[in-house]
Protein backbone atom coordinates (compact mmCIF):
# COMPACT_ATOMS: atom_id res chain seq x y z
CA UNK A 1 0.00 0.00 0.00
CA UNK A 2 1.44 3.33 -0.99
CA UNK A 3 0.68 6.86 0.09
CA UNK A 4 -2.71 7.63 -1.42
CA UNK A 5 -4.12 4.22 -0.54
CA UNK A 6 -3.57 2.50 -3.88
CA UNK A 7 -2.08 -0.99 -3.97
CA UNK A 8 1.32 -1.00 -5.63
CA UNK A 9 1.34 -1.96 -9.30
CA UNK A 10 5.05 -2.46 -9.89
CA UNK A 11 5.80 -2.38 -13.61
CA UNK A 12 9.46 -1.39 -13.39
CA UNK A 13 11.09 -4.81 -13.11
CA UNK A 14 13.49 -4.26 -15.99
CA UNK A 15 14.93 -1.51 -13.82
CA UNK A 16 15.10 -3.65 -10.72
CA UNK A 17 13.07 -6.61 -9.54
CA UNK A 18 11.26 -7.06 -6.26
CA UNK A 19 12.73 -9.70 -3.93
CA UNK A 20 11.02 -12.84 -2.67
CA UNK A 21 10.99 -13.21 1.12
CA UNK A 22 13.35 -16.18 0.93
CA UNK A 23 16.10 -13.99 -0.52
CA UNK A 24 15.77 -11.45 2.28
CA UNK A 25 15.54 -14.15 4.95
CA UNK A 26 18.62 -15.92 3.63
CA UNK A 27 20.56 -12.66 3.77
CA UNK A 28 19.41 -11.86 7.29
CA UNK A 29 20.28 -15.35 8.48
CA UNK A 30 23.72 -14.97 6.99
CA UNK A 31 24.32 -11.54 8.54
CA UNK A 32 23.05 -12.58 11.95
CA UNK A 33 24.56 -16.05 12.20
CA UNK A 34 27.36 -16.66 9.70
CA UNK A 35 28.95 -13.26 9.30
CA UNK A 36 32.70 -13.45 8.74
CA UNK A 37 35.15 -12.77 5.98
CA UNK A 38 35.71 -15.50 3.41
CA UNK A 39 38.73 -17.47 2.21
CA UNK A 40 40.97 -15.98 4.86
CA UNK A 41 39.40 -17.20 8.05
CA UNK A 42 40.12 -20.53 9.71
CA UNK A 43 37.49 -20.29 12.41
CA UNK A 44 34.01 -21.75 12.38
CA UNK A 45 32.20 -18.56 11.31
CA UNK A 46 34.80 -18.05 8.61
CA UNK A 47 34.32 -21.58 7.32
CA UNK A 48 30.55 -21.07 7.30
CA UNK A 49 30.82 -17.78 5.43
CA UNK A 50 33.23 -19.26 2.87
CA UNK A 51 31.01 -22.27 2.37
CA UNK A 52 27.95 -20.08 1.84
CA UNK A 53 29.81 -17.77 -0.55
CA UNK A 54 31.35 -20.53 -2.62
CA UNK A 55 28.15 -22.49 -2.79
CA UNK A 56 26.49 -19.39 -4.23
CA UNK A 57 29.07 -19.67 -6.99
CA UNK A 58 28.00 -23.28 -7.61
CA UNK A 59 24.37 -22.20 -7.80
CA UNK A 60 25.09 -19.43 -10.29
CA UNK A 61 27.24 -21.78 -12.39
CA UNK A 62 24.34 -24.24 -12.55
CA UNK A 63 21.86 -21.44 -13.34
CA UNK A 64 23.75 -20.42 -16.48
CA UNK A 65 25.05 -23.92 -17.28
CA UNK A 66 28.68 -22.85 -16.95
CA UNK A 67 31.10 -25.67 -17.81
CA UNK A 68 33.11 -24.84 -14.68
CA UNK A 69 32.30 -23.06 -11.43
CA UNK A 70 35.69 -21.36 -11.56
CA UNK A 71 34.52 -19.47 -14.63
CA UNK A 72 31.96 -17.57 -12.53
CA UNK A 73 33.30 -14.26 -11.25
CA UNK A 74 31.39 -12.12 -8.81
CA UNK A 75 31.37 -8.39 -9.59
CA UNK A 76 29.30 -5.57 -8.11
CA UNK A 77 26.88 -5.33 -11.03
CA UNK A 78 26.62 -6.00 -14.75
CA UNK A 79 28.30 -2.69 -15.53
CA UNK A 80 31.42 -3.70 -13.63
CA UNK A 81 31.42 -7.08 -15.37
CA UNK A 82 31.36 -5.44 -18.82
CA UNK A 83 33.97 -2.87 -17.82
CA UNK A 84 36.16 -5.62 -16.39
CA UNK A 85 36.34 -7.11 -19.87
CA UNK A 86 36.93 -3.83 -21.72
CA UNK A 87 39.38 -2.64 -19.10
CA UNK A 88 41.54 -5.77 -19.02
CA UNK A 89 41.52 -5.94 -22.83
CA UNK A 90 43.21 -2.51 -22.74
CA UNK A 91 46.20 -4.17 -21.04
CA UNK A 92 46.02 -7.56 -22.74
CA UNK A 93 48.95 -8.86 -24.73
CA UNK A 94 49.04 -11.58 -27.37
CA UNK A 95 45.95 -12.62 -29.30
CA UNK A 96 43.60 -10.48 -27.28
CA UNK A 97 45.61 -7.25 -27.54
CA UNK A 98 43.72 -4.39 -29.20
CA UNK A 99 45.30 -1.51 -31.08
CA UNK A 100 45.13 0.78 -34.08
CA UNK A 101 43.36 -0.85 -37.03
CA UNK A 102 41.41 -3.22 -34.80
CA UNK A 103 37.65 -2.96 -34.52
CA UNK A 104 35.11 -3.51 -31.79
CA UNK A 105 31.50 -4.06 -32.83
CA UNK A 106 28.48 -3.28 -30.66
CA UNK A 107 24.87 -2.41 -31.51
CA UNK A 108 22.72 0.68 -31.50
CA UNK A 109 20.37 -0.84 -28.94
CA UNK A 110 22.93 -1.31 -26.17
CA UNK A 111 22.53 -0.07 -22.63
CA UNK A 112 25.07 2.69 -21.85
CA UNK A 113 26.95 0.13 -19.78
CA UNK A 114 27.71 -1.79 -22.96
CA UNK A 115 28.61 1.32 -24.96
CA UNK A 116 30.78 3.58 -22.82
CA UNK A 117 33.33 0.88 -21.82
CA UNK A 118 33.96 0.17 -25.50
CA UNK A 119 34.18 3.86 -26.35
CA UNK A 120 36.79 4.27 -23.62
CA UNK A 121 38.70 1.19 -24.82
CA UNK A 122 38.75 2.09 -28.50
CA UNK A 123 39.56 5.78 -27.87
CA UNK A 124 42.38 4.87 -25.52
CA UNK A 125 43.88 2.20 -27.78
CA UNK A 126 43.35 3.94 -31.11
CA UNK A 127 40.97 1.22 -32.29
CA UNK A 128 37.65 1.76 -34.06
CA UNK A 129 34.17 1.32 -32.63
CA UNK A 130 31.47 0.15 -35.04
CA UNK A 131 27.91 -0.99 -34.54
CA UNK A 132 24.92 -2.80 -35.94
CA UNK A 133 22.10 -0.40 -36.82
CA UNK A 134 18.42 -1.09 -36.15
CA UNK A 135 15.50 -1.76 -38.45
CA UNK A 136 12.33 0.29 -38.14
CA UNK A 137 10.59 -2.49 -36.27
CA UNK A 138 13.31 -2.59 -33.64
CA UNK A 139 15.45 -5.53 -34.75
CA UNK A 140 19.16 -5.57 -35.39
CA UNK A 141 19.94 -4.80 -39.00
CA UNK A 142 22.06 -7.81 -39.91
CA UNK A 143 22.15 -7.07 -43.65
CA UNK A 144 25.77 -5.89 -43.50
CA UNK A 145 27.02 -8.41 -40.92
CA UNK A 146 29.71 -9.85 -43.20
CA UNK A 147 31.22 -6.44 -43.82
CA UNK A 148 30.75 -5.22 -40.24
CA UNK A 149 32.22 -8.28 -38.57
CA UNK A 150 35.44 -8.86 -40.47
CA UNK A 151 39.02 -9.96 -39.96
CA UNK A 152 39.82 -6.69 -38.16
CA UNK A 153 37.11 -7.33 -35.57
CA UNK A 154 38.52 -8.30 -32.19
CA UNK A 155 35.37 -8.11 -30.06
CA UNK A 156 31.63 -8.30 -30.71
CA UNK A 157 29.65 -7.19 -27.68
CA UNK A 158 25.88 -7.17 -27.72
CA UNK A 159 22.82 -7.43 -25.57
CA UNK A 160 20.78 -10.59 -25.65
CA UNK A 161 17.52 -8.81 -24.82
CA UNK A 162 17.11 -5.05 -25.22
CA UNK A 163 16.09 -3.21 -22.07
CA UNK A 164 14.30 -0.58 -24.14
CA UNK A 165 12.86 -2.29 -27.23
CA UNK A 166 12.42 -5.71 -25.69
CA UNK A 167 14.02 -7.25 -28.78
CA UNK A 168 15.54 -10.72 -28.34
CA UNK A 169 18.66 -10.83 -30.49
CA UNK A 170 19.94 -13.89 -32.41
CA UNK A 171 23.04 -14.08 -30.24
CA UNK A 172 24.21 -17.53 -31.32
CA UNK A 173 23.96 -16.61 -34.99
CA UNK A 174 26.01 -13.45 -34.54
CA UNK A 175 28.50 -15.33 -32.36
CA UNK A 176 28.99 -17.84 -35.18
CA UNK A 177 30.03 -15.07 -37.55
CA UNK A 178 32.25 -13.45 -34.90
CA UNK A 179 34.03 -16.73 -34.24
CA UNK A 180 34.58 -17.24 -37.97
CA UNK A 181 36.73 -14.11 -38.01
CA UNK A 182 38.38 -14.90 -34.67
CA UNK A 183 36.62 -12.24 -32.58
CA UNK A 184 35.52 -12.86 -29.02
CA UNK A 185 31.86 -12.50 -28.16
CA UNK A 186 30.65 -10.64 -25.09
CA UNK A 187 26.97 -11.05 -24.25
CA UNK A 188 25.12 -8.61 -22.00
CA UNK A 189 22.53 -10.91 -20.44
CA UNK A 190 21.24 -8.36 -17.93
CA UNK A 191 17.71 -8.58 -19.34
CA UNK A 192 17.98 -12.16 -20.59
CA UNK A 193 19.01 -13.88 -17.35
CA UNK A 194 15.81 -12.81 -15.56
CA UNK A 195 13.54 -14.13 -18.30
CA UNK A 196 15.13 -16.84 -20.43
CA UNK A 197 16.80 -20.15 -19.67
CA UNK A 198 20.50 -19.29 -20.13
CA UNK A 199 23.07 -21.73 -21.46
CA UNK A 200 26.34 -19.86 -21.92
CA UNK A 201 27.79 -22.43 -24.29
CA UNK A 202 24.70 -22.71 -26.49
CA UNK A 203 24.55 -18.92 -26.64
CA UNK A 204 27.99 -18.93 -28.23
CA UNK A 205 29.34 -16.46 -25.69
CA UNK A 206 32.98 -16.19 -24.71
CA UNK A 207 32.03 -13.85 -21.90
CA UNK A 208 28.60 -13.11 -20.45
CA UNK A 209 27.42 -10.60 -17.86
CA UNK A 210 24.31 -10.16 -15.77
CA UNK A 211 23.26 -8.36 -12.61
CA UNK A 212 21.85 -9.66 -9.33
CA UNK A 213 19.16 -7.09 -8.65
CA UNK A 214 17.25 -7.91 -11.85
CA UNK A 215 17.04 -11.66 -11.08
CA UNK A 216 15.23 -11.13 -7.75
CA UNK A 217 18.61 -10.89 -5.98
CA UNK A 218 20.10 -7.96 -4.08
CA UNK A 219 22.01 -4.94 -5.38
CA UNK A 220 25.78 -4.94 -5.02
CA UNK A 221 26.32 -8.18 -6.94
CA UNK A 222 26.78 -9.02 -10.59
CA UNK A 223 28.24 -11.92 -12.51
CA UNK A 224 30.80 -12.25 -15.22
CA UNK A 225 31.09 -15.68 -16.74
CA UNK A 226 33.95 -16.35 -19.14
CA UNK A 227 35.49 -19.30 -20.93
CA UNK A 228 38.51 -20.40 -18.97
CA UNK A 229 40.92 -19.91 -21.90
CA UNK A 230 39.81 -16.32 -22.34
CA UNK A 231 39.84 -15.46 -18.64
CA UNK A 232 43.26 -17.04 -18.24
CA UNK A 233 44.62 -14.83 -21.02
CA UNK A 234 43.27 -11.58 -19.60
CA UNK A 235 45.52 -9.64 -17.23
CA UNK A 236 44.23 -8.85 -13.74
CA UNK A 237 41.64 -6.09 -13.30
CA UNK A 238 41.70 -4.75 -9.73
CA UNK A 239 44.71 -5.59 -7.56
CA UNK A 240 44.81 -6.57 -3.91
CA UNK A 241 43.28 -8.80 -1.29
CA UNK A 242 42.87 -12.39 -2.34
CA UNK A 243 43.61 -12.02 -6.07
CA UNK A 244 47.27 -12.76 -5.52
CA UNK A 245 49.44 -15.83 -5.39
CA UNK A 246 52.34 -14.09 -3.73
CA UNK A 247 53.25 -10.43 -3.11
CA UNK A 248 56.68 -8.94 -2.75
CA UNK A 249 57.29 -5.21 -2.84
CA UNK A 250 59.05 -5.61 -6.18
CA UNK A 251 56.52 -7.85 -7.90
CA UNK A 252 53.48 -9.98 -7.42
CA UNK A 253 52.06 -13.09 -9.02
CA UNK A 254 48.35 -13.73 -9.32
CA UNK A 255 45.87 -16.37 -8.32
CA UNK A 256 43.97 -18.45 -10.85
CA UNK A 257 40.36 -17.80 -11.80
CA UNK A 258 37.95 -16.89 -10.34
CA UNK A 259 39.96 -15.23 -7.54
CA UNK A 260 42.29 -13.41 -9.95
CA UNK A 261 39.37 -11.10 -10.75
CA UNK A 262 37.97 -10.75 -7.24
CA UNK A 263 40.20 -8.25 -5.43
CA UNK A 264 39.29 -7.35 -1.88
CA UNK A 265 36.47 -8.57 0.29
CA UNK A 266 33.78 -9.71 -2.13
CA UNK A 267 30.08 -8.91 -1.78
CA UNK A 268 29.56 -11.90 0.52
CA UNK A 269 26.03 -11.57 1.79
CA UNK A 270 25.04 -10.30 -1.66
CA UNK A 271 26.39 -13.48 -3.29
CA UNK A 272 24.52 -15.53 -0.73
CA UNK A 273 21.36 -13.60 -1.57
CA UNK A 274 21.95 -14.12 -5.28
CA UNK A 275 22.37 -17.84 -4.66
CA UNK A 276 18.96 -17.90 -2.97
CA UNK A 277 17.53 -15.85 -5.84
CA UNK A 278 18.65 -18.18 -8.62
CA UNK A 279 17.50 -21.16 -6.58
CA UNK A 280 14.12 -19.49 -6.31
CA UNK A 281 13.95 -18.86 -10.06
CA UNK A 282 15.05 -22.41 -10.81
CA UNK A 283 12.43 -23.81 -8.47
CA UNK A 284 9.74 -21.85 -10.31
CA UNK A 285 11.42 -22.91 -13.55
CA UNK A 286 12.92 -20.62 -16.16
CA UNK A 287 10.73 -22.19 -18.86
CA UNK A 288 7.64 -21.34 -16.84
CA UNK A 289 8.91 -17.82 -16.16
CA UNK A 290 9.58 -17.33 -19.84
CA UNK A 291 6.11 -18.58 -20.80
CA UNK A 292 4.50 -16.29 -18.20
CA UNK A 293 6.54 -13.34 -19.48
CA UNK A 294 5.37 -13.96 -23.02
CA UNK A 295 1.75 -14.28 -21.95
CA UNK A 296 1.82 -11.08 -19.91
CA UNK A 297 3.69 -9.24 -22.65
CA UNK A 298 1.15 -10.38 -25.23
CA UNK A 299 -1.68 -9.25 -23.00
CA UNK A 300 0.01 -5.91 -22.42
CA UNK A 301 0.64 -5.31 -26.11
CA UNK A 302 -3.06 -5.93 -26.77
CA UNK A 303 -4.10 -3.61 -23.97
CA UNK A 304 -1.75 -0.83 -25.03
CA UNK A 305 -3.03 -1.07 -28.59
CA UNK A 306 -6.43 0.10 -27.33
CA UNK A 307 -5.04 3.40 -26.02
CA UNK A 308 -5.48 6.12 -28.66
CA UNK A 309 -2.29 7.90 -29.67
CA UNK A 310 -0.04 5.26 -28.13
CA UNK A 311 2.88 3.92 -30.18
CA UNK A 312 5.00 0.99 -29.02
CA UNK A 313 8.72 1.18 -29.84
CA UNK A 314 10.11 -2.23 -30.77
CA UNK A 315 8.78 -5.57 -32.04
CA UNK A 316 5.03 -6.13 -31.74
CA UNK A 317 5.16 -9.91 -31.71
CA UNK A 318 5.32 -11.11 -28.09
CA UNK A 319 7.07 -14.34 -29.04
CA UNK A 320 10.02 -12.33 -30.37
CA UNK A 321 10.56 -10.05 -27.43
CA UNK A 322 11.19 -9.69 -23.72
CA UNK A 323 8.89 -8.10 -21.20
CA UNK A 324 10.04 -4.49 -21.39
CA UNK A 325 7.65 -2.37 -23.47
CA UNK A 326 8.57 1.24 -24.21
CA UNK A 327 5.99 3.51 -25.76
CA UNK A 328 5.07 7.05 -26.65
CA UNK A 329 1.74 8.72 -25.98
CA UNK A 330 0.87 11.64 -28.25
CA UNK A 331 0.81 14.95 -26.45
CA UNK A 332 2.03 13.79 -23.04
CA UNK A 333 5.67 13.68 -22.02
CA UNK A 334 6.87 10.43 -20.38
CA UNK A 335 7.65 12.23 -17.10
CA UNK A 336 4.10 13.42 -16.90
CA UNK A 337 2.73 9.99 -17.75
CA UNK A 338 4.86 8.39 -15.04
CA UNK A 339 3.77 11.01 -12.55
CA UNK A 340 0.07 10.56 -13.15
CA UNK A 341 0.44 6.78 -13.09
CA UNK A 342 2.34 7.05 -9.83
CA UNK A 343 -0.57 8.96 -8.33
CA UNK A 344 -2.55 5.77 -8.95
CA UNK A 345 0.13 3.48 -7.49
CA UNK A 346 1.48 2.38 -10.84
CA UNK A 347 5.28 2.36 -11.09
CA UNK A 348 6.78 2.64 -14.59
CA UNK A 349 9.98 4.22 -15.85
CA UNK A 350 10.22 7.42 -17.87
CA UNK A 351 13.33 8.67 -19.61
CA UNK A 352 15.98 7.19 -21.87
CA UNK A 353 16.42 4.00 -19.80
CA UNK A 354 20.20 4.29 -20.27
CA UNK A 355 19.71 3.69 -23.99
CA UNK A 356 20.02 7.15 -25.50
CA UNK A 357 21.31 5.99 -28.89
CA UNK A 358 18.35 3.64 -29.35
CA UNK A 359 15.99 6.50 -28.53
CA UNK A 360 17.83 8.77 -30.96
CA UNK A 361 17.48 6.07 -33.64
CA UNK A 362 13.71 6.31 -33.33
CA UNK A 363 13.79 10.09 -33.15
CA UNK A 364 12.58 10.32 -29.57
CA UNK A 365 14.14 11.91 -26.54
CA UNK A 366 12.59 9.66 -23.99
CA UNK A 367 9.84 7.10 -23.58
CA UNK A 368 7.68 5.47 -20.98
CA UNK A 369 8.48 1.85 -20.18
CA UNK A 370 6.41 -0.79 -18.46
CA UNK A 371 8.21 -3.97 -17.55
CA UNK A 372 6.70 -7.06 -16.03
CA UNK A 373 8.11 -10.08 -14.23
CA UNK A 374 7.09 -13.40 -12.80
CA UNK A 375 4.83 -11.74 -10.20
CA UNK A 376 2.96 -9.54 -12.69
CA UNK A 377 -0.77 -10.24 -13.17
CA UNK A 378 -3.15 -9.35 -16.01
CA UNK A 379 -5.11 -7.19 -13.55
CA UNK A 380 -2.01 -5.04 -13.14
CA UNK A 381 -1.84 -4.59 -16.90
CA UNK A 382 -5.52 -3.56 -16.84
CA UNK A 383 -4.66 -0.99 -14.18
CA UNK A 384 -1.92 0.39 -16.42
CA UNK A 385 -4.21 0.69 -19.42
CA UNK A 386 -6.86 2.45 -17.32
CA UNK A 387 -4.16 4.68 -15.87
CA UNK A 388 -3.08 5.68 -19.36
CA UNK A 389 -6.66 6.57 -20.28
CA UNK A 390 -6.84 8.66 -17.14
CA UNK A 391 -3.54 10.33 -18.06
CA UNK A 392 -4.94 11.32 -21.43
CA UNK A 393 -7.98 12.86 -19.85
CA UNK A 394 -5.90 14.57 -17.14
CA UNK A 395 -3.81 16.28 -19.80
CA UNK A 396 -6.86 16.80 -22.00
CA UNK A 397 -5.43 15.12 -25.08
CA UNK A 398 -7.49 13.54 -27.83
Amino acid at each position, binding site marked *: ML*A*GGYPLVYLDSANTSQKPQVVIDTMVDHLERHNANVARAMHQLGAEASEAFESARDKVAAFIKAPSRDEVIFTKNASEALNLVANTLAWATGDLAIGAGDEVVITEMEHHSNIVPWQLLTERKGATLRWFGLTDDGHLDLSNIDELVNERTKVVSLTWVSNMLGTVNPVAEIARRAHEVGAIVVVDASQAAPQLPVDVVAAGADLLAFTGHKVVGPTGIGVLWGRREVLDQLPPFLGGGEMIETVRMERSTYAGIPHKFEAGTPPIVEAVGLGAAVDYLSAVGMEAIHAHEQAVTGYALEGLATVPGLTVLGPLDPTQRGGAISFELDGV*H*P*HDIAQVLD*SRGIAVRAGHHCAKPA*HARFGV*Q*SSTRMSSYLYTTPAEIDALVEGLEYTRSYFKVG
Partner: protein
Amino acid sequence: MTNQDLDALYQEIILDHYKHPHHKGLREPFEAEVHHVNPTCGDEVTLRVHLDGDVVSDVSYDSVGCSISQASASVMTDLVIGRKVDEALAIHEEFLTLMQGRGSVEPDEDVLEDGIAFAGVAKFPARVKCALLSWMAWKDATAQVMEESH
Protein backbone atom coordinates in the same frame (compact mmCIF):
# COMPACT_ATOMS: atom_id res chain seq x y z
CA MET B 1 0.78 10.29 -3.71
CA THR B 2 -2.80 11.44 -3.76
CA ASN B 3 -4.87 13.13 -6.42
CA GLN B 4 -4.56 16.34 -4.42
CA ASP B 5 -0.78 16.14 -4.63
CA LEU B 6 -1.09 15.61 -8.34
CA ASP B 7 -3.24 18.69 -8.72
CA ALA B 8 -0.81 20.67 -6.56
CA LEU B 9 1.93 19.63 -8.95
CA TYR B 10 0.07 20.28 -12.16
CA GLN B 11 -1.44 23.67 -11.39
CA GLU B 12 -3.48 25.28 -14.14
CA ILE B 13 -0.80 27.96 -14.52
CA ILE B 14 1.78 25.29 -15.28
CA LEU B 15 -0.39 23.50 -17.79
CA ASP B 16 -1.17 26.84 -19.49
CA HIS B 17 2.50 27.74 -19.85
CA TYR B 18 3.17 24.18 -21.09
CA LYS B 19 0.54 24.42 -23.81
CA HIS B 20 1.41 28.01 -24.72
CA PRO B 21 5.04 28.69 -23.83
CA HIS B 22 6.25 32.29 -23.82
CA HIS B 23 9.36 33.48 -25.63
CA LYS B 24 10.04 30.07 -27.14
CA GLY B 25 12.32 29.72 -30.18
CA LEU B 26 15.93 30.71 -30.78
CA ARG B 27 16.50 34.36 -31.68
CA GLU B 28 19.29 36.75 -32.63
CA PRO B 29 21.16 38.67 -31.39
CA PHE B 30 22.75 36.80 -28.46
CA GLU B 31 26.11 36.86 -26.70
CA ALA B 32 26.06 33.33 -25.31
CA GLU B 33 24.37 30.06 -26.15
CA VAL B 34 24.40 27.03 -23.86
CA HIS B 35 23.10 23.50 -24.09
CA HIS B 36 22.02 21.76 -20.89
CA VAL B 37 20.88 18.19 -20.39
CA ASN B 38 19.19 16.42 -17.54
CA PRO B 39 21.32 13.24 -17.56
CA THR B 40 18.75 11.10 -15.81
CA CYS B 41 15.93 11.62 -18.28
CA GLY B 42 17.53 13.19 -21.32
CA ASP B 43 15.53 16.42 -21.30
CA GLU B 44 17.43 19.16 -23.10
CA VAL B 45 17.44 22.88 -23.54
CA THR B 46 19.43 25.13 -25.87
CA LEU B 47 19.29 28.66 -24.54
CA ARG B 48 20.57 32.07 -25.69
CA VAL B 49 21.06 35.22 -23.68
CA HIS B 50 21.22 38.74 -25.05
CA LEU B 51 22.31 41.43 -22.59
CA ASP B 52 22.04 45.13 -23.23
CA GLY B 53 24.43 46.71 -20.76
CA ASP B 54 23.28 45.34 -17.40
CA VAL B 55 19.79 44.52 -18.63
CA VAL B 56 18.57 41.09 -19.75
CA SER B 57 17.17 42.16 -23.04
CA ASP B 58 16.28 38.74 -24.46
CA VAL B 59 16.30 35.07 -23.51
CA SER B 60 15.38 32.64 -26.25
CA TYR B 61 15.34 28.87 -26.12
CA ASP B 62 14.55 25.60 -27.79
CA SER B 63 13.77 22.66 -25.54
CA VAL B 64 12.45 19.14 -25.31
CA GLY B 65 11.01 18.05 -22.05
CA CYS B 66 8.08 17.45 -19.77
CA SER B 67 5.36 19.90 -18.78
CA ILE B 68 7.27 21.03 -15.71
CA SER B 69 10.49 21.78 -17.54
CA GLN B 70 8.71 23.49 -20.45
CA ALA B 71 6.48 25.61 -18.24
CA SER B 72 9.41 26.53 -16.05
CA ALA B 73 11.38 27.86 -19.04
CA SER B 74 8.39 29.93 -20.08
CA VAL B 75 7.88 31.40 -16.60
CA MET B 76 11.60 32.05 -16.25
CA THR B 77 11.74 34.15 -19.41
CA ASP B 78 8.73 36.18 -18.24
CA LEU B 79 10.53 36.88 -14.99
CA VAL B 80 13.98 37.81 -16.23
CA ILE B 81 13.52 39.51 -19.58
CA GLY B 82 13.68 43.27 -19.13
CA ARG B 83 15.23 43.11 -15.65
CA LYS B 84 18.66 44.17 -14.56
CA VAL B 85 21.00 41.20 -14.35
CA ASP B 86 21.41 41.41 -10.59
CA GLU B 87 17.66 41.61 -10.03
CA ALA B 88 17.19 38.62 -12.30
CA LEU B 89 19.86 36.70 -10.41
CA ALA B 90 18.07 37.47 -7.17
CA ILE B 91 14.87 36.02 -8.61
CA HIS B 92 16.86 32.97 -9.68
CA GLU B 93 18.06 32.57 -6.08
CA GLU B 94 14.53 32.86 -4.78
CA PHE B 95 13.26 30.23 -7.21
CA LEU B 96 16.15 27.91 -6.31
CA THR B 97 15.35 28.26 -2.62
CA LEU B 98 11.72 27.44 -3.29
CA MET B 99 12.63 24.35 -5.33
CA GLN B 100 15.12 23.01 -2.82
CA GLY B 101 12.86 23.59 0.16
CA ARG B 102 11.09 20.22 -0.10
CA GLY B 103 7.76 22.00 0.18
CA SER B 104 8.53 23.93 3.36
CA VAL B 105 9.24 27.32 1.73
CA GLU B 106 6.38 29.80 1.29
CA PRO B 107 6.79 31.45 -2.13
CA ASP B 108 6.58 35.23 -2.49
CA GLU B 109 4.15 36.08 -5.28
CA ASP B 110 5.50 39.61 -5.60
CA VAL B 111 8.85 38.23 -6.63
CA LEU B 112 8.02 34.96 -8.38
CA GLU B 113 4.68 35.82 -10.02
CA ASP B 114 3.55 32.71 -11.98
CA GLY B 115 6.62 30.97 -10.52
CA ILE B 116 4.72 30.37 -7.31
CA ALA B 117 2.81 27.66 -9.15
CA PHE B 118 5.95 25.53 -8.82
CA ALA B 119 5.68 25.36 -5.04
CA GLY B 120 4.07 21.91 -5.43
CA VAL B 121 7.00 20.63 -7.48
CA ALA B 122 9.37 21.04 -4.54
CA LYS B 123 7.70 18.03 -2.92
CA PHE B 124 8.77 15.78 -5.81
CA PRO B 125 12.57 15.48 -5.67
CA ALA B 126 12.64 13.71 -9.05
CA ARG B 127 10.91 16.68 -10.69
CA VAL B 128 12.90 19.49 -9.12
CA LYS B 129 15.61 18.95 -11.72
CA CYS B 130 13.01 19.38 -14.46
CA ALA B 131 11.92 22.73 -13.04
CA LEU B 132 15.50 23.91 -12.68
CA LEU B 133 16.88 22.87 -16.07
CA SER B 134 16.26 26.13 -17.93
CA TRP B 135 17.02 28.31 -14.90
CA MET B 136 20.44 26.70 -14.61
CA ALA B 137 21.04 27.11 -18.32
CA TRP B 138 20.09 30.80 -18.09
CA LYS B 139 22.44 31.37 -15.17
CA ASP B 140 25.27 29.60 -16.96
CA ALA B 141 24.78 31.59 -20.19
CA THR B 142 24.51 34.87 -18.32
CA ALA B 143 27.71 34.13 -16.39
CA GLN B 144 29.46 33.47 -19.70
CA VAL B 145 28.41 36.82 -21.12
CA MET B 146 29.45 38.65 -17.94
CA GLU B 147 32.81 36.91 -17.99
CA GLU B 148 33.53 37.85 -21.57
CA SER B 149 32.58 41.48 -21.05
CA HIS B 150 35.24 41.74 -18.31
